[in-house]
Structure formats: structure tokens, C-alpha cells
């Protein structure tokens, strides 16, 4: 067992973990933050994306011990004071989810995308989300959801385009 200290969604935890424990299992099973999902065993699907020190990471490819000392944000930490993040709003407004299984990872990846590129074109959104798979939506409404969030975050008065 190793002892780690991590700050998740603003709260600091000291935990004993087996060195081989994946971060995604630590978050889901030890911290009961089950919003982060698992969709594959080969790092393809992106259902498990969280932010470590502000960067999006597939939490199935990281050991919990590697996150020692890190600041982690999961989907549960995205809304602030009961206020949905513009991306969460966008996914809701634009029907960017159906079963909702890919959604937390998709939103966390899109967040990182918008940090790096606040005004992405459709093509940039599609390529920016290449590491996340969705089997339900066919992606078109996910693209719209991200455009909605980008517009809102940029404070543009334009109603999010089709």
C-alpha cells in the first residue's frame, strides 16, 4: 500500500492505495466519484477523462500513485455553486447526449479543447474530440454543444449557430 494525497474537486484526500490501482478505479471506488466512466481497456474511448493539474487525461492510463500531490477535477466538480458550466448547458440544450455514458468524458475533453482554442471551427472540434467515442449521437449535436459553449464563454451575443 502507498499513501497518496490528492485534491479532487477542491477537497483534499489522504488515501492508501495499492500501487497498481488505476486512477479511474481510485476515483470511482475509493472516492465514490462514479461520474467518471470506463468504456474500454485500451485507452481509446475517453469515457474516463478527468483533469489533472488543468490538463485532460484518460484516468484509465494513470496510476493513482502518479497523481500524488495533484489537483484533479472530475465531471462532478465542473458545475460551480449549482450553476452548470456552459458545456454542460450546451450538451443539454443541443441534445448532445443520449445514454449519457460518454458524456462526462466528452465534456471534460471539450473543456480542455476550449481552453486551448476558445473559438474552434467545426473541424477543429471534431478533431479535438478524436480521443472520445460516442456510440449514440453520431457527434453532430456534440459539435453543436461545444459551439454553444464556446459562444457563451466568449460572451458573444450570437445565438449558437446551427
Amino acid at each position, binding site marked *: 500500500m502507498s499513501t497518496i494525497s490528492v485534491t479532487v474537486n477542491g477537497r483534499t484526500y489522504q488515501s492508501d492505495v*495499492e500501487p*497498481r*490501482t488505476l486512477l479511474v*478505479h481510485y476515483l*470511482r*471506488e475509493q472516492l*465514490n*466519484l*462514479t*461520474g*467518471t*466512466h*470506463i*468504456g*474500454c*481497456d*485500451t485507452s*481509446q*474511448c475517453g*469515457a474516463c477523462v478527468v483533469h489533472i493539474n488543468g490538463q485532460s487525461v484518460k484516468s484509465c492510463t494513470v496510476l493513482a500513485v502518479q497523481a500524488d500531490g495533484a489537483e484533479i477535477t*472530475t*465531471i*462532478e466538480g*465542473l*458545475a460551480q455553486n449549482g450553476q*452548470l458550466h456552459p458545456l*454542460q448547458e450546451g*450538451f*443539454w*440544450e443541443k*441534445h448532445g*447526449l*443520449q*445514454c*449519457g*455514458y*460518454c*458524456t*462526462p468524458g466528452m*465534456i471534460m475533453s471539450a473543456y480542455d479543447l476550449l481552453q486551448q482554442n476558445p473559438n474552434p471551427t*467545426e*473541424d477543429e*472540434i*471534431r*478533431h479535438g*474530440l*478524436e*480521443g*472520445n*467515442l*460516442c*456510440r*449514440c*449521437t*453520431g*457527434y*453532430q*449535436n*456534440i*459539435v453543436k454543444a461545444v459551439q454553444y459553449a464556446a459562444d457563451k464563454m466568449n460572451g458573444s451575443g450570437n445565438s449558437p449557430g446551427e
Partner: protein
Amino acid sequence: MTTVTKMVGQSLKRREDPKLITGKGNFLDDIKLQGMSHAAILRSPYAHAKINSIDTSKAKALPGVIAIFTGDDMMDINPLPCAWQAGRVQNNANTPRALSAGKALYAGDGIAMVVAENRYIARDALDLIEVDYEPLPVVVDAKKATEAGAPQLHENAPNNICMTWDCGHKDATDAAFSSAEVTVKEQIINQRLIPTPMETRGALARYDEATGEFTVWMTSQAPHVMRLLLTAFVFGIPETKLRCISPNVGGGFGQKIFCYADMAFTMWAARKLGRPVKFVEDRSENYRSSTHGRDHITDVEIAGTKDGTITGLRIETWANLGAYLSTIAPGIPTTLYGRIATGVYKIPAAYCKVHGVYTNTAMVDAYRGAGRPEASYLIERMVDRFAAEIGMDPAEVRRKNFIQPSDFPYDNGMGLLPYDSGNYEPALDRALAMVGYADFRNEQAEARKQGKYLGLGISSYVEICGVAPSAWIGLPGEGWGAGLWESANIRVHLTGQVVVTTGSLPHGQGVETTFAQIVADELGVPYESVLIEHSDTAGTPFGYGTYGSRSLAVGGTALYKSVAKVKEKAKKIAAHMLEANPADIEYADGKAYVKGSPDQAKTLGEIALQASVAYSLPEGVEPFLDETTYYDPPNCTFPFGTHIAIVEVDGATGMVAIKRYVGVDDVGNPINPLIIDGQLHGGIAQGIAQALYEHGVYDENGQLVSGTLMDYAVPNAAMLPNYELDRTVTPSPVNPMGVKGAGEAGTIGSAQAIMNAVIDALAPFGVKHLQMPATAERVWRAMQSH
């Protein structure tokens, strides 16, 4: 008077979403129970092997391992049932057991179960189990499996033939071919696909020794059916001893309809150990051991006249069913395939013969569209082949052979119930207009001069939704082992809040939203005051679940009828309250009043209060507004439409790029257009995925080569286009709301639009047909060989 805004027809955003976008969903693997243990399954690495012995001693000694079981331990429960015995498979139905004993029939067949304190230990223990396998010869190809000398899987199925089924008119069809002016023949392969819901499958079982009751949380599209199958067939216990709950389900696409081994072995072990047992597949397990879809090899011929009239269609299909029969496997390549093989065309003579075949591969069952994508792909490819053969515009050949509006209800002669309604030409015309068909051929010719290969593909499809009635689907030839009605209960509580319980099982379709829209309108109550409950066999009426695009057409109609009953009773009580004759009462906008005096109305809330407190009710009227309907439709519904794709093939690499994708669909009256479009997007994406990317491949040793998401190409956002959609509306006469269903239409309409476009683009190379998926390599090779 306040005006009431109609909810039906509005693109309301979904009430399902707030918890899903905040990480508060409740999926199977999110559930933790006191004392819960974790199961892992040892799966045969061989596609066909005799199991001489299994030594679990080392694994048992690993700290944290609670128990290890093999197939021999579980002989006190029955094999899983096959519930849809179409093609009269009764005598050679072979279904899987909770764990296989003595033999493994495909790579991935479960042969031992570890139960441990956590999932890591359970996995460790798998490596310590020693199995003495004796490998046997393997066959993975459905056609080869029927040939002399092929390895045999089951004693009761000589030549691995599970069933031979046919429909249509053989003699008339043979005659049509012998007198035909033009015939075209092709072998068309509809490749194996892996459904890939983003959440894998699994089960969590708990057993209460004191009551003898099981509770199973499952990733199921049909928990009521699972309860029936697991109790009455597998465990031989009273149905009341099992409660099945589907929490949030992360996509299904058919794969989560069926009764699986994990449901049985988690129940069995939970009872044995007195501890809850959870099993969740990882992705490679899901790929190796949960059901696949499609996998047809078909010889098909079309006959017609030189001026473009189709006169005959002859089909012979080898349908790969895998190593065992999954729950409804026989119904997919029969009822849902052969019977709709003629598509949107009037074809005077058609015949379809299907061989259902066992092979050393994972089981094949319904995958989004289930039989209908295979059928529509076949006919739409052949119509294009025929058009090319006679040198006629493929749009014109379609137009010329369409079933006409005046022909409905239309009997296609394949043993299907009559198509309910349709008007195919407007959808085709609209799609052609959207895509700019008139100009396209010039552009294409221009582009070709510059070495650019553009292609346009048309797909006009029809499909079968809300499969019913029970009396038809249960006929011996159709072989469905139960009903296909759906249920809905509605209760108006004392506070005026409306609680609906349904046997449908939404897992992404937005049924909670759509159903609440219907109730709000029909009952005239605020949308927010309607609660839709589902997914738990405790507290919902028996229902057959969500698949086959049936929730709205069947489940929604049950709901509609229950609402009507509530209104009838409310009118009686209102008449009593208003001291009026019930016959004089009208109900509108949530109020009941004497005709002509709406200002003296009683609101539904007031009536519900009166009905609940029951101080004063009319003679013979029971308290409470509570009505249930079990609705068995008189017919299926038949959505249709035309999809058109424009692609560009890279002459140097064979890469296919989709330039436009247009779909004009007719799903009957729309309830929530936003949700319908979402369903179509996802459906089209899966059809495009089949056309261009996905292929479940076994090597000749029966190893699944496309065994992970690294090798099986589920498309990401950059691999799919924008979908340009429009609608025509032809209400279904089958149900009072005139709805049809939208869950599968996109998949059924799309693959052939893409393939027809790719093949059109390759016309300069003399390519007449290409098998799916049209990968760059395959396209490039096709360009080289001509």
C-alpha cells in the same frame, strides 16, 4: 381562459439530462452493495476445444479469493432459453449455459468463475487456473460450415445447420427469372459487426436467504423479460422470487436485449455464497463474448425489363448465428429480414431462402435495425446494379417501381402483415432536391476529368417498427415465444401529480421526455407534474422492453389509451360533482365541464382529490384515478425515407470522404423533433460505420482479430459528416397518434447510400460491386484490378 401550449411536436430538451451531464447518473458499475464481491470469468482461448480438466487449487489459495466455480458446479440450473424460435428451430436449438462444461465452442466461451474481494484479485486468480484443453478443428464461415467435412458443433445440428427457412413464392420467382429480359446476380456480404454500446454489459445479483428472493441489477433493455426467462426457464423458481432492475443503461443497440450467462452465474453464486456478486465485462470481453450483429453471405439475383421494371428477386442467405443461439437470434435473419426483402418496390415475384448456421464464433443476434439493414442493403444495392445494367438513372428506376400511395395497405407477398402507409416519392424528390441531383452528374463528369472521383448513392428504404401483433408474431412459423404488446399505468395522485409507469425501458431514447409530453397534452396538465417511472420489475407493469423502435408506437399508445381511460373516469366524477349528466360532460385542457359552460369547470386536480378522498363518488365508481392498458397493436408500423450520400474517393489512396449526407425520413407524426433527429443521427452514424469502417473479423482459428477498440473501428467525430435532415409526414393508421418509430431508421437507410456512392465513384474503373467496409485498402485494390 388560459391557452394551453401543446407539448407534442415541440423540441423540448430532455428531462433525463441534468443528472447525466453532472456525473450523477447511476450505471451498473456505479452501484455498491454491502458485502459485495467481484466476479471474473475464465474464457476459452480456443474457438473449439474439449476441456479435459480444470485445476483451480492454486487460484483458490490466493488471498482474497472467495470461491471458484466451473460449469460442472452449475448443472442445477438450465441453459439459457431461446425465446424466438423462428424457422422452427425447436429441435436443434442449442443455447449457452451459465458456464460451459466439457467443451468450449468459441474463443471467449466462459468456463470458470472466480469470485473475489475485489476485481484486481479476481483477475489475478484467473491466471492461476490451469486448464487442460484439447483443441478441435474450427469453422468460422457460415457457408463453409455447411459443407461436407466441416467441423461439427452440435450433435443435433448436422452440417451445422440450425434452420432452413424461406418466404415468398419460389415457383413464380423461378418463372419470372426464366422469362426475364435482364437478370443481374451478385454475392453480397453483410459483414459481422460488434454493437459496442459505450457501457459494456454486466449484472449485480443479491440473494436474500430469509425470503429466497433475488434482486439483480442489470444492463438490460428488457428487465421484465429477463425476470421471466431467468425464473421460469433457467432457475425454475417462481417469477416473484426475482426482481430485475435496469439502472441507467449506457446504450444498447440490441446487444442488451438478451438473456446472458452473467445474469445466471451472478445469481447462482450470490445464492451459493450469501454475498452480492458483481460482474462487469471489460471491453475486450464484451467484444469476444457478448452478441454480434449481421454476418450474412447472400447470393442475390434481380430480374427486370429493359425499360426498368423489376420483375423478380431471388435471395439465398447463409446467416451466421455463432456457436449457440442467443435469445432472439432466429427471428432476425427470418421475420425481420426475408419478409421485408422487397423493400419499397412492387416486385411481382420474390423468394428468399435462409440457412441459419452454427460456427465457432460469438453469438449473433439483433443489432440496431436487426435484419432490416441487411434487407435494405441488399435490395438497394441490387436496384443500383440493375439500373447500371440497363443504363437507366437509379433515381428513375426507384421511382418507376415504388409502391404507390393508393396501394396501401400493401401486401408484399413475403408473409408480412401489410405495410401500413407510405408515400415514397416525395421523400425521394425532396432528398434529390436537397442534394442538387440535377447538377450533380455534370459536376461528377467535370471532376472525373480532373482525376477526382465523385460518387452519389441513393437509398430508398422501408422498415418494420413496433413488431406486433402478438397473434401474428406468435404463429408457429414466426416462432416468437411470448407476446409483443406493451403496458402503461397512469395514476393521478391526490395532489394532482401524475405518475406513469411503463414496461418500456429507455436507455438513451428520451422516452421520459416524450411520454411526459404526450400525457401533458392529452390530460391537459403541466408537463412538470408528470413523472415517468420505468426499469424496475417492482413497481412497473409487465412489459416487453425497448427495442425494435417500439417504445413510442406500442408503449406510447398504451399510455395514450390509459390517459383516455383516466379522462373517462374523471368525466364521471366531474358529472357527479357538478350534478350533471355524464353524457353532457366534456374534458379539455385539464378540466371537465358541462358542454357550453367551461367557466363552471372542475380541474383534474379537484377531480383527483375527490377521487382520492372518496367522500362522495358516483354510484359504482371506485376511488382513485388509476388506469392500466395492455396494448397489442393490430399491425407493425413501416417508417420509410430516402437517404443520399455524395462521396469523393481519393484516386491515389482509396480513401473515401463523405462530402454530403442527406436524409429525408418519414417516421409518422413527430412527438419531439429534437429527439427524433438525435435518433436518426446516431442511426446514420452506425450505418456509415458499417459501410466504411467496422468489421468484426475472425481468423481461421476462430480468434477475434478485431478484439479491442484499437482494432475495431468505431468512428470518432472526425470520421463522420454532418447529417442534413428533413422529414415528410405520413401518419400511421395503426395507432391513434399516427406515430411510427425512429430508433433504427437511420441505420436501415444509410449503409447502402454510402456504398452506392462509393461504387458510383468507382464506375470509371469498371467496379460493379464492392463488399463492406469500403476501407481505403479495399477501394484502392478495386481501382487497381480494373
